[in-house]
């Protein structure tokens, strides 16, 4: 199967799933209880694989044709004898609590003869004859070929089958000859392939190489010379394990792997233009999600919980502001210019990141190669259609443009999702409303399989403070504090005017009235907040509330009077000035063009305004004596729906279900990829038929099972992988193994790799002693990439806002980055040889390493920059370089040392992990 799938040029592989197949599927109307689902068909095809004759890869293998010309439902396609038997067996097995997958049923009916033509089902299937049609039977001479085919097919069935869309069945750990090499089960799976292929694992890497490898892998930073000495001196049997434990506990680990997961989860800061109204992609303050990722990894929060929080924290933990940050995963897809694109990205990348399937194709038509229908695509869309993003206040900052918690919520719980014909938003199929669901073929043994992929959605009643975030205590306090600050400001201004003898009396009077107005406004606000607090506490209509509400009404009436007085005064002043100007014969033209809201200078208009102001004041004063009431005017606050659909929760629970076929597989593969340089499935975001098959399917399945067993602990998997013998191998070549497996597909050695962009920059700063290890906080301007000393994951990354230095080293693509593809380019040489950053840091380290003897300097520089001792020859070259006559009169010893450090920063070993 491997070789077949790796060769895409076989026309049959295409024809097998071209038009007739899709057209045939289209004739089946979906029904949860029906058996001829696309998944059953896929399972049938998968079971027989290349042994399935083309003429049998169609509906009529199990069904009779419909008698009507235009069949309306699946009921018109009754089973033939073979299909009937499969169907019946399904019921029996389920009732008996046994696995009832189609594969299991096909195995059971293999020797039976469903159509009674005295040829067993399997023989008929292998010879291209219909096992449900007695008239279609192989001629006698064909039958003689059957046993050879059956033997071949039996061998095929016995081999491990990669079934990424079926729930993981934990494979047994193989027993291998090279048992001494096996440190943990990972090695057993790897060794089994070595032995099957005649590959010889490379010996363990030297301690220096291994230490640097694991440091860079787990924290992204070199071991310091002190750490190198300590490890080299530690001869205890668990010296390496101690280092691993130490590194996994280091907060740098969360930053290192946080950046990896930011790739997979498509982290992006906001893109667009400042000014607030042109935020085109993602949202400001999304860095809180990045901090959540780093913290979650450091705390070793379960991956399942991380998935739940990223997709639905607003439903699962609506008041937990820490967890709400996680929904940045969805916020990131925000697209100002197109809701359609926003939804498309959300579905596409949620599926690729967590499930490793490309559902995007099914927006316009049924997926061509994976069993995902267009209808199912829109069922997924129904999960996300109601959601939107918003920015909640955070303590100490009322202006959400400046800072806030950006998060997800269901804005339109009643939003209907329709299938878009050919994916075109202009042609929704409004006959049907799509219900939230997931592709049936991906359900595995999750409970969702029983409902044909339809999610069991429970609406979530949100706590008051989740829907009314401005009723939170800190918002009350911050609002009052801001009001108090405003009050202090106007009082201060009044005091200043009073001491200034040049102040015009009407100006002074205006400020005096402003002070009174602000005081009254503040008092009214305080009264309103008192009343609202009783409301929040569930005591609306209590006596306390009534008292507070009555006070609020009184305060607001008082405020109206004071405001009206101020307004009257202002109008009087303006009118007086205008009249005076008119008397002086000057045209009453404003100097600047009149802005909206400016007072008209026309005396007649002003006179009318004066009359209005007088009337308003009179009305306000009259209101003062009105009967007391409780109908105060509430504050203007953000208000959101009180219920959430619960769809994302149901979806997230399915993703994070221990029985989900893909979630754990995809996650461990992502981890493997970053430890070993290539995924077990080489296409980490495509586990479907367009992806490439795994090198070690059993190992991946075992790891997925182990991941779930260990409570989805990522640190447990990291520990398992980096302490394996596989990981500890040298990356040096071996001619014999290279001949058998040139690409090291079966890991007979460790892969050498180039450091990712961020690690190049971070490590450069680190080894030269400049790295600022402060964690978290708002993203740093991308233009400061060469001057900031913070770790690279804190630098802004968004469309058109990228750090050039990182881009040159193949930094993450903003749109998607499931895997880095490191290159070797002259631009990288220029960046490390010519950048101000490299010069500054080299200078700094050279100064720091100052010693008297050249030999000592060379040794220290190697330890610091390359985390190893120089060889005799390298040390000699270094000494000679320092001792050589300066190339230029202007340069001396210090300069030569700076240059030596610069050379080591440009050394291939600096950017390479061996």
């Amino acid at each position: 199967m491997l070789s077949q799938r790796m060769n895409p040029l076989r026309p049959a592989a295409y024809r097998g799933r071209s038009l007739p197949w899709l057209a045939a599927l289209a004739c089946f109307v979906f029904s949860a209880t029906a058996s001829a689902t696309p998944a059953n068909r896929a399972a049938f095809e998968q079971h027989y694989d290349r042994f399935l004759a083309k003429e049998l890869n169609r509906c009529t293998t199990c069904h009779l044709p419909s008698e009507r010309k235009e069949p309306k439902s699946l009921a018109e396609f009754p089973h033939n004898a073979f299909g009937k038997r499969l169907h019946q067996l399904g019921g029996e097995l389920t009732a008996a609590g046994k696995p009832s997958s189609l594969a299991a049923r096909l195995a059971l009916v293999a020797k039976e003869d469903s159509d009674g033509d005295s040829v067993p089902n399997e023989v008929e299937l292998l010879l291209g004859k219909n096992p449900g049609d007695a008239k279609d039977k192989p001629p006698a001479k064909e039958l003689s070929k059957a046993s050879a085919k059956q033997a071949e097919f039996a061998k095929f069935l016995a081999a491990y089958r990669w079934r990424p869309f079926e729930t993981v069945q934990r494979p047994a750990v193989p027993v291998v000859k090279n048992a001494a090499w096996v440190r943990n089960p990972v090695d057993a799976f790897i060794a089994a392939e070595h032995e099957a292929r005649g590959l010889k694992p490379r010996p363990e890497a030297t301690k220096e190489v291994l230490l640097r490898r694991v440091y860079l892998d787990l924290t992204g930073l070199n071991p310091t010379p002190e750490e190198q000495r300590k490890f080299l001196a530690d001869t205890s049997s668990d010296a390496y394990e101690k280092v691993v434990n130490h590194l996994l506990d280091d907060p740098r680990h969360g930053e290192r792997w946080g950046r990896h997961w930011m790739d997979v989860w498509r982290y992006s800061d906001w893109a667009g233009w400042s000014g607030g109204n042109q935020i085109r992609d993602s949202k400001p303050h999304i860095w809180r999600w990045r901090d959540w990722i780093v913290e979650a990894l450091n705390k070793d929060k379960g991956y399942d919980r991380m998935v739940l929080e990223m997709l639905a924290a607003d439903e699962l933990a609506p008041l937990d502001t820490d967890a709400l940050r996680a929904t940045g995963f969805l916020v990131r897809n925000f697209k100002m210019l197109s809701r359609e694109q926003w939804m498309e990205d959300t579905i596409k990348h949620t599926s690729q990141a967590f499930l490793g399937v490309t559902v995007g194709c099914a927006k316009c038509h049924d997926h061509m190669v994976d069993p995902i229908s267009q209808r199912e695509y829109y069922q997924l869309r129904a999960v996300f259609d109601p959601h939107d993003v918003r920015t909640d206040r955070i303590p100490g900052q009322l202006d959400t443009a400046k800072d806030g918690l950006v998060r997800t919520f269901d804005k339109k719980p009643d939003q209907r999702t329709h299938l878009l014909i050919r994916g075109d938003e202009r042609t929704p199929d409004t006959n049907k409303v799509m219900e939230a669901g997931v592709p049936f073929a991906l359900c595995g043994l999750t409970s969702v399989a029983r409902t044909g992929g339809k999610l069991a959605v429970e609406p979530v009643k949100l706590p008051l403070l989740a829907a009314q975030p401005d009723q939170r205590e800190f918002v009350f306090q911050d609002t009052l504090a801001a009001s108090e600050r405003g009050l202090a400001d106007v009082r201060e201004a009044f005091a200043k005017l009073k001491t200034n003898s040049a102040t015009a009396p009407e100006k002074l009077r205006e400020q005096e009235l402003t002070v009174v107005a602000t005081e009254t406004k503040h008092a009214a606000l305080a009264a309103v907040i008192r009343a609202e607090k009783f409301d929040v506490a569930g005591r609306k209509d209590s006596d306390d509330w009534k008292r507070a509400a009555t006070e609020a009404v009184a305060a607001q009436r008082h405020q109206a009077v004071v405001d009206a007085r101020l307004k009257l005064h202002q109008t009087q002043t303006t009118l007086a000035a205008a009249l005076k100007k008119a008397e002086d014969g000057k045209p009453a033209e404003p100097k600047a063009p009149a802005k909206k809201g400016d007072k008209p200078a026309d005396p007649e208009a002003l006179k009318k305004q004066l009359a209005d102001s007088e009337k308003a004041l009179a009305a306000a004063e009259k209101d003062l004596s009105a009967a007391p009431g409780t109908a105060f005017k509430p504050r203007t606050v953000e208000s959101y729906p009180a219920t959430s659909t619960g769809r994302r929760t149901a979806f997230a629970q399915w993703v994070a279900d221990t029985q989900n076929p893909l979630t754990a597989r995809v996650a461990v593969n992502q981890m493997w990829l970053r430890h070993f340089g290539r995924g077990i499935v080489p296409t980490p975001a495509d586990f479907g038929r367009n992806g490439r098959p795994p090198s070690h399917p059993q190992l991946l399945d075992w790891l997925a099972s182990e991941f779930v067993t260990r409570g989805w602990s990522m640190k447990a998997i990291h520990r398992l992988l980096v302490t394996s013998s596989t990981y500890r191998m040298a990356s040096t070549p071996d001619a014999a193994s290279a001949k058998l497996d040139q690409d090291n597909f079966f890991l007979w050695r460790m892969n050498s790799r180039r450091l990712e962009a961020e690690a190049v920059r971070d490590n450069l700063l680190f080894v030269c002693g400049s790295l600022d290890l402060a964690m978290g906080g708002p993203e740093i301007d991308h233009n400061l990439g060469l001057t900031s000393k913070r770790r690279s994951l804190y630098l802004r990354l968004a469309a058109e806002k990228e750090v050039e230095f990182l881009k040159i080293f193949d930094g993450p693509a903003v749109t998607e980055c499931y895997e880095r593809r490191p290159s070797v380019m002259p631009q990288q040489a220029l960046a490390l040889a010519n950048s101000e950053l490299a010069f500054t840091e080299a200078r700094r380290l050279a100064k720091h390493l100052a010693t008297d003897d050249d030999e000592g300097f060379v040794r220290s520089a190697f330890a610091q920059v390359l985390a190893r001792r120089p060889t005799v020859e390298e040390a000699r070259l270094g000494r000679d370089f320092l001792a050589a006559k300066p190339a230029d009169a202007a340069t001396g010893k210090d300069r030569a040392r700076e240059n030596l450090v610069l050379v080591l920063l440009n050394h291939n070993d600096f950017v390479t992990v061996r």
Partner: protein
Amino acid sequence: MGFTGLALGAMLFRDARAAAPSAGLSPSGLPHFAPRAKSVIWIFLCGGVSHLESFDVKPELNKYAGKSIAETPYAKVLETEGKNIIGGNPGHGNRKVIMPLQTGYETYGQSGLVVGDWFKHIGTCADDLAVVRSLWTIHNDHGAQLTWQTGRHPRELEHPTLGGWVSYGLGSLNENLPEYVVLGTPTGDCCGGTFTYGSAYLGPEHGGVRFSTDPKKPLPFIAPPAGSITPAEQLQNLSLLGKLNQLAGIDYPDDQNLRARIKSYELAYQMQASVPETMQLERETEATRQLYGMDRSETKAFGEQCLVARRLVERGVRFVQVFHGGGGGGAWDAHSAIKSNHTNLSTQVDKPIAGLLKDLKQRGLLNDTLVVFGTEFGRTPGAQGDGRDHHPQGFCAWLAGGGIKPGVQHGVTDELGFHAVEDRHYVTDIHATALHQLGLDSHKLEIPSRKRLEMDHGEPIRAIIT
């Protein structure tokens, strides 16, 4: 810059490189037979240019506009028998109502080439072109962009591009510039991304190097900060670096990345002077700049790229890959409003490409420079709203210069441009043709452990070779 001892620097590095063992059977850098061309300018239009309205004009589409294909006398074009269709467009079930040509057309030159009005300028070069009208490819989506470059389906990930093979097979004519340069925005990640100018197992030293045409900043970090280092020091540093890298590589003799890194430092050092010099387009005459459309805003960007392409081949670069409309699925992907889409985009490229051909010709460079104009697939004769869908089973490209027969048309699609029907060519036949003109036989370049299929090699299209 004022570097001294450039030759010394280059020499030191070459020593280090020679000592670093090579991957597989390294070719001699000499052609296998007498070459007709020294360099290739490989223009690639991303997204799928309509063959029907460019260089394979089908007037029958106007005649039968609005009719379904089955209603025309050409219903048989839908038959696939004997056409070896792999990965055709199944969506054609819905694209059978014929859409008329969305632009006019004219006959050009002595060769009588019919060209759609979107490419009027290139039309005036008709007598220099060899149009191949019978191409087909294996992928119905924009992953075919990768197929055009490597011959492989995107599902197979990375394989050497044609540019990679050329770099591997011939090496450089100029130690100061990369063998393989990439201009413009390449294919998006969806559809091949960096693989579309990569070199896969040939090693990263044979991958394409992206240049910006911005003369102020052709490459970042092109010069060290003022006063930070003297040229003499820089040379000493690079010499030490070369020796250290060579020593560190002893344990890793098969490390292609190390080889590539050593080479990248050598190149980077030389490029500090050579790249800014190459990008000095202001040194060109006004007439030349106008020829490339650099005086007009809509043609300026692509005109600059075409002019830089000429300057690169003049300086000995072997393979210049010029992308237009890259990123995402590609700009030319006119599923809707093909008229405005192709009108706008062809305006950007038509004059500059014609300018490039004329300029190469007037300088005598066209004799040993092969220019190839390609796209990943054509577009359906049937309408998709007011656009056309992907069409992998019949499309066209053209070649010019470098010993290619001028003014010929080769291969035929059926009357509606649906299937390539005569002299069908898979995309690697274009690769084989280009390699042939460079004097290379791809079979001889093959690395023994990297078995290639015959389909990967392709066959030179003899009918268009002089």
